[in-house]
């Protein structure tokens, strides 16, 4: 009798685990929740743009080393820009940053390494804003390896 009961109990356990796994798997697919990764901003200063465009409104000023959550969705964002833009989240803001301005690895940041030195130049919020705009305005390029 005890053996039968424990056997029955085991079968129920297995069913419950199977059910939980199944519902979780299908739930994820049905609602297509975004896949979220952590990335880092690599430039001295920059902007989280409202749209995938350098001229788009700045939602937030970013600093080197800022952690960003990248949101990948099925829908591709339409952009006139020739650069790849990534949709990401920081705090309550969701916006866009150029792909070449972010990295999977934590960058070595000038403003962290020489924190006190940078502080001596009393950079105000407008300076940081302009620094970000400067990087948006640059024509970036690199000649290849020989």
């Amino acid at each position, binding site marked *: 009798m005890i053996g039968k009961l424990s056997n029955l109990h085991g079968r129920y356990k297995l069913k419950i685990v199977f059910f939980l796994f199944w519902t979780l798997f299908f739930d994820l697919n049905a609602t297509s929740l975004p896949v979220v990764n952590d990335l880092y901003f690599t430039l*001295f200063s920059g902007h989280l743009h409202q749209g995938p465009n350098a001229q788009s409104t700045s939602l937030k000023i970013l600093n080197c080393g800022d952690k960003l959550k990248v949101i990948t969705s099925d829908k591709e964002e339409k952009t006139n820009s020739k650069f790849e833009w990534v949709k990401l989240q920081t705090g309550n803001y969701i916006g866009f940053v150029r792909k070449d301005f972010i990295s999977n690895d934590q960058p070595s940041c000038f403003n962290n390494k*020489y924190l*006190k030195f940078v502080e001596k130049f009393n950079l105000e919020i407008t*300076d940081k804003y*302009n620094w970000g705009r400067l990087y948006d*305005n640059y*024509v970036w390029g690199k000649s290849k390896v*020989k």
Partner: protein
Amino acid sequence: MKNLILSVLLIIPSLTKSQDPLDNKKPEIKTDFSKIKDVLKNDQLEEEVNKKLAKEKGLKELEEKELKERFLVPQSNEIWSFLSELWIIRNTEKLKWNFEKPDYGMDEFFAKFLEDQGYYELNFKILLLDNSLIPHFCLPSNPNEAIFLFSAPFMRILDLSKLEISLLLLEDYNRNKMNQFKNRVKSPDLEKTFGMNFQKQEFPQKVFDDVLKSYDDLVFDKGFNFEEQFEITMKMESILKSNTTLWNTYLNLIEKIGNLSKTNLLYKDYAKLYPSPEMQLNWLKPKKKAL
């Protein structure tokens, strides 16, 4: 082993009790501490404690080192891009670089141009200015980097091709490689600050203010001198003369700029910044032999 530890734990409270003055009458229990020591030794507890202390000491030293490093002035190979960009930021309104512009495709063209001339792995940034006063400059930067300023009105008025723009950028880049800009803005005092730690001494603010002031003087007023201009012109000759197309384009370009500076009041100061297109042509064109 467990028994030993238990016995140690039982012995310790009894020892503390024996120290109570009220219990003076109770017989003294003599404990062999060397045995406890042996137990601790066998359990490697001592080693663990030492390891923990060493780790804490190491962490503290690391924190102190990191804190000290944060007061460092960057070395010469890390400081120039920061200073140049700081100068750009401080002169945003004067330089007028924050404006919407079309994509001229200079990134790909100039990268290819550099590779063709044998300049590899150079990270460049070109900043277009909506300003006629500053035609083109290459600001000091960290190794394997180049920060260019290029006037969009200057480009339009001369109807410059991508190749002509690239030639001027190459000239500016080589001027920088020859340290013409750096030598004009850096002082011996600045060199002394590279790598210094100002945690326990005053930050040399004036030295950096003077450097940024020297940028102003060079870009907005003085420009380069004849000697520097001769040096760069000869350098360009050595780079381009073997390629007829590039060489002729360069000569025509200097002539075009010379005509502009003579005929357009907006560009009358060009010859002051880069003295002078006319002289450059004289240096470059072959001398006529007297018959």
